[in-house]
């Protein structure tokens, strides 16, 4: 970004304008483009894809009336929410209540500053990128607590406090499972971490050694918990808390909360991709800068969105955990295991200072065999359902 602006200044554009003003304007324009073109569409589109995906998993069809196959459903939902009245309860703490959604939104949008889209497509490649990412995500807790407190509603308050406890707890395993990657690369810059990996799966940190393989799953689990996603969506548990901290919200503010939630899903996928799945790395295909950038962007987006789909799929599969189970999973299982992981990676680096390609390849084969076994299980369940529907084993009168 800065290099691009520097080259423009050298070519004589913006003569007479102070350099810092050009940088600031460039940042604001880039931020606005990212926000409008990318985040809005990804967050909105995810709501539609999520609803269709759940529907298919539950043997339903899902929204399919607005536009071809219902693809415009999310736009219509958004317009409806924008046009609704923005109700603020009389006894609510007005300024806090009004500001809370924007704080949550900020906490999630600010992550896009360091999230890369390609080797050249990044707003700012900070040398403390990972620390920045963890710090900025903490803003979400403040926003949620603000919303819970300011609503002057017991459901909101309990939801907000639960969420704060949950996010603060799960930041520890997610931070600790990022640590092995920092040990391996020696950098906190996200671009630096991606550059340390290769395009081939066995060059990814996911398969670098057994410890990073475990770290990835710990990271993904705790990222789901941090994003208040099922099976850890206790702050919004409908059966207990109405809608948690969003109970009193309506209209645009409600929309902003949910945009942050679904946008956050993409952030989870993008960070996992960056740290463990080789980011935008592609084999060298051509010297054309534009073509390479587009291919890198597509690679990164596909990898990141795959994990968004997995998160949706998990939400359709797993039931919500209890509060004590939530804390047990975090403090008794994820935190100790991630500590062991950290030590394990450190020991591994002592034994193999430059990594071990054979082990990486074996880990890759392990991954492939897990996926293969998974699909065998899927076909097993499909066959069983087929027997139930068409064979003698007729169990359900509805099938």
């Amino acid at each position, binding site marked *: 970004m800065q290099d691009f602006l520097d080259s423009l200044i050298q070519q004589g554009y913006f003569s007479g304008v102070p350099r810092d003003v050009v940088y600031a304007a460039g940042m604001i324009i880039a931020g606005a483009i990212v926000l409008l073109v990318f985040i809005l569409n990804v967050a909105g589109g995810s709501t539609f894809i999520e609803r269709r995906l759940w529907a298919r*998993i539950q043997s339903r069809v899902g929204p399919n009336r607005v536009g071809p196959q219902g693809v415009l459903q999310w736009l219509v939902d958004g317009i409806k929410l924008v046009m609704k009245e923005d109700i603020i309860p009389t006894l609510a703490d007005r300024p806090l209540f009004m500001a809370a959604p924007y704080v949550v939104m900020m906490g999630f949008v600010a992550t896009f500053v360091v999230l890369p889209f390609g080797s050249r497509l990044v707003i700012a490649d900070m040398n403390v990128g990972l620390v920045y990412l963890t710090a900025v995500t903490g803003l979400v807790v403040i926003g949620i607590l603000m919303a819970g407190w300011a609503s002057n509603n017991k459901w909101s308050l309990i939801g907000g406090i639960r969420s704060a406890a949950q996010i603060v707890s799960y930041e520890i395993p997610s931070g600790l499972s990022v640590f092995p990657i920092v040990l391996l690369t020696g950098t906190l810059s996200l671009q630096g971490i991606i550059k340390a990996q290769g395009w081939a799966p066995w060059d990814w940190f996911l398969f670098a050694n057994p410890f990073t393989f475990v770290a990835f799953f710990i990271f993904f689990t705790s990222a789901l918990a941090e994003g208040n996603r099922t099976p850890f969506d206790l702050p919004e548990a409908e059966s207990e808390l109405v809608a948690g901290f969003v109970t009193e919200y309506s209209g645009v503010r409600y929309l902003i909360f949910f945009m942050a939630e679904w946008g956050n899903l993409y952030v989870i996928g993008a960070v996992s991709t960056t740290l463990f799945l080789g980011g935008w790395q592609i084999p060298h295909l051509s010297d054309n800068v534009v073509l390479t950038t587009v291919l890198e962007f597509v690679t990164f987006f596909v990898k990141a969105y795959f994990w968004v789909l997995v998160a949706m799929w998990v939400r*359709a599969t797993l039931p919500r955990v209890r509060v004590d189970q939530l804390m047990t999973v975090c403090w008794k299982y994820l935190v100790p295991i991630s500590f062991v992981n950290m030590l394990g990676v450190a020991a591994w680096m002592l034994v193999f200072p430059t990594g071990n390609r054979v082990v990486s390849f074996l880990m890759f084969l392990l991954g492939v065999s897990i996926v293969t076994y*998974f699909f065998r*299980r899927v076909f097993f*369940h*499909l066959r069983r*359902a087929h027997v139930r529907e068409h064979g003698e084993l007729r169990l359900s009168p509805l099938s």
Partner: protein
Amino acid sequence: MKQRGYLGNIIDTAKTVFDGMAVTFSHFVRRPFTVQYPDRMDVRVQDTLPFRYRGILEVDLEICTGCLACERACPIDCIIIDAKKDPQTKGMVLTRFDIDMAKCMYCGLCSEPCPTGSIHHTPEFEGADYSLESLIRRFVKDPVVAYKPKKAGEDDPEILEMLDRGLRYVEEFASPEGKKPGDEEEAA
């Protein structure tokens, strides 16, 4: 369930989540069960319903004898028939045959005693409307002469068709021994 240790719990979690995901994925690639009523169907629902389905009432005035059996049978008086004798032809003339579908409870008692099967339920069930008034079905627009069975048998093919359908409808209510619900009362 037996108590498991620390590692056992972890293995249990991994295994159950893994298999649960496999189950949901197998559902993902199956066909949805949803029937997209009313506009995206291969056949209308009405066409798939059985002959005896009790939908909105219908009267074939051409074969109505004006016997008032249905009006008497109706437990909530939603059928109102005005019939009078024509002094010249000595035949019955129907001047009014109204069924208030808002009151009707679809019990089917009116169609059982009908001698010709003129009043019967249709498979039509979509009765939503904007006012109660429009739910009253008025079958008689101009006074009509009631149907009188001919001794020599029916010869008009149009009415014959209606009669066949009506009698088949009445026959549906007959018990396995061939008795109609009305027959038992006469015997008793």
